[in-house]
């Protein structure tokens, strides 16, 4: 049984269909890449699955249960966690406290348990000096902290929305290793990414979106050679 299954998922903003008729399945322990040009509906897809937007029509099933109309915090409780395209640290809390959020409210842990779990995750993510305020952290650390916050909710599905954006080469390498380690622990991961190297190195399967629709899906090698995908990214030959 698929961990996540969407059937004809559609989300409209006014007259614009940011997602239309998206049907897909994500299996357990899989790493799936979602790619597509700007405006293809990748972020809307994340937001609809994570519950920030409710679908206009269609169905989302998670662990065999229809979750189409549940709210964001309820989906977190069910086991869907995410990071954000733009960094969104909570400035009123320090690094460790940011990560504790996941345990406190995602799992309902006590302060003590949430704190211990957050410390463990920090170690796993190689985050140091955990009591630092956000203003004293680097971009890479903030991104890692956001993944840690998502992990602290003890999810079964993790969305990584452009976690590599803005990182330099070494940092990207480090991040790829981290994601691989997380998947190694049995986590199902959906990666939304523009950096194709990341998709190539990490994903078992790629889904390509264009204009809110699934253009094609398959192995990275097949998808990246697909003429429709190349056209979608680069435009028609005459335009080049």
């Amino acid at each position, binding site marked *: 049984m698929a961990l996540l299954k969407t059937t004809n998922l559609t989300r409209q903003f006014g007259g614009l269909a940011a997602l239309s008729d998206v049907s897909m399945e994500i299996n357990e322990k899989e790493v799936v890449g979602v790619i597509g040009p700007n405006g293809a509906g990748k972020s809307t897809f994340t937001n609809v699955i*994570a*519950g*920030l937007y409710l679908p206009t029509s269609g169905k989302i099933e998670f662990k065999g249960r229809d979750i189409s109309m549940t*709210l*964001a*915090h309820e989906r*977190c*409780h069910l086991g869907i*966690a*995410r990071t*954000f395209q733009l960094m*969104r640290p*909570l*400035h*009123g*809390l320090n690094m460790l*406290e940011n990560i*504790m*959020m*996941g345990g*406190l*409210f*995602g*799992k309902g842990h006590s*302060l003590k348990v949430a704190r211990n779990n957050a410390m463990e995750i920090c170690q796993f993510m190689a985050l140091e000096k955990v009591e630092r305020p956000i203003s004293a952290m680097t971009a890479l650390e903030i991104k890692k902290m956001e993944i840690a*916050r*998502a992990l*602290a*909710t003890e999810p079964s599905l993790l969305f990584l929305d452009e976690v590599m954006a803005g990182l330099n080469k070494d940092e990207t390498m480090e991040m790829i290793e981290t994601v691989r380690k997380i998947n190694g622990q049995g986590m199902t991961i959906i990666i939304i990414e523009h950096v194709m190297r990341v998709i190539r190195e990490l994903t078992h399967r790629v889904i390509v979106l264009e204009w809110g629709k699934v253009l094609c899906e398959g192995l990275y090698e097949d998808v990246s050679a697909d003429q429709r995908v190349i056209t979608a990214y680069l435009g028609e030959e005459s335009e080049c």
Partner: protein
Amino acid sequence: MKYWKYMIFAVCVLVAISLPKFLGVYPLQMLNIIFIYMALAVSWDMLLRSGQMSLGVAGFCGIGGYTTVLCTINLGLNPLVSILIGALLAGLIALLVGYAVLHLRLLYFAIVTLAVTEIFRILVRNFDITGGPEGIILPNAIFKGDAAGTYWLMLAIAVFTIILSWVFQKTRIHFALTSTANDEIVAASSGLNIFKYLVIVFVITSAIQGMVGGAYAQIYGFVTPESSFSVNFVLLPVTMVLLGGSNSTWGPVIGAVLLSVIAEALKLVIPYGHLLVYGIIMIVAILWLPGGIYGIFKKIGAKAHN
């Protein structure tokens, strides 16, 4: 060393409890006023930590005041018990209002809470049971007007509010409110039921305001639509929080002490002129003291620490 803060607080409370032995009626009444506004300012700040601003402080004070007076007069209840009932009713009304409007944010929520104040003020003005425009006078003030008794009552309410504010800062409520103020999308994605926490905090802080209003009515022995729902009950605590420093327990406490003392001194020099001074202090605090007085202390402390 970790507990020195609590030790100092405990010593302060003990000293405060013993004060009626040494002070006359006037300073004690002055302290009553300080405690009243301290409890209001701290409770207002407790909700503000979520980014939501209630302008219904006067409304809940009035609801608490009228409830306690009606309970004492019509049901013959003990004044202390009726103060608690006033707090409960204020909390209940906050629950209904909060449930209906806590999906609103910022200005919209603030205006609705202000409207609630007006609705209840107009209601008590027009019902016979609440005494119409003249209000109700109690046959006896609480503790027969004993200065020490009323002082201890207000001290207890102020200390209770400060301790509750601490609890808010030391428990998961702190995480819930801070994350809600910072970024609601991240908070919800981390599993936080924002609405639930906002309602809980709005109910608790409004109940405190109802309790303060109830105690106020019992101490002075009367309620009227204009004095019990006075705009001072919302504007003064707001000014005190801005001056003292929001998002803390000690900021509002400092603000309440300072402004109450300043107002009392000014009343003697320029009657009613103190209201003008409040306005100026509010503007100065907003323009040049974004973190309030407590914020300056914290900055100096952080510098010294480094």
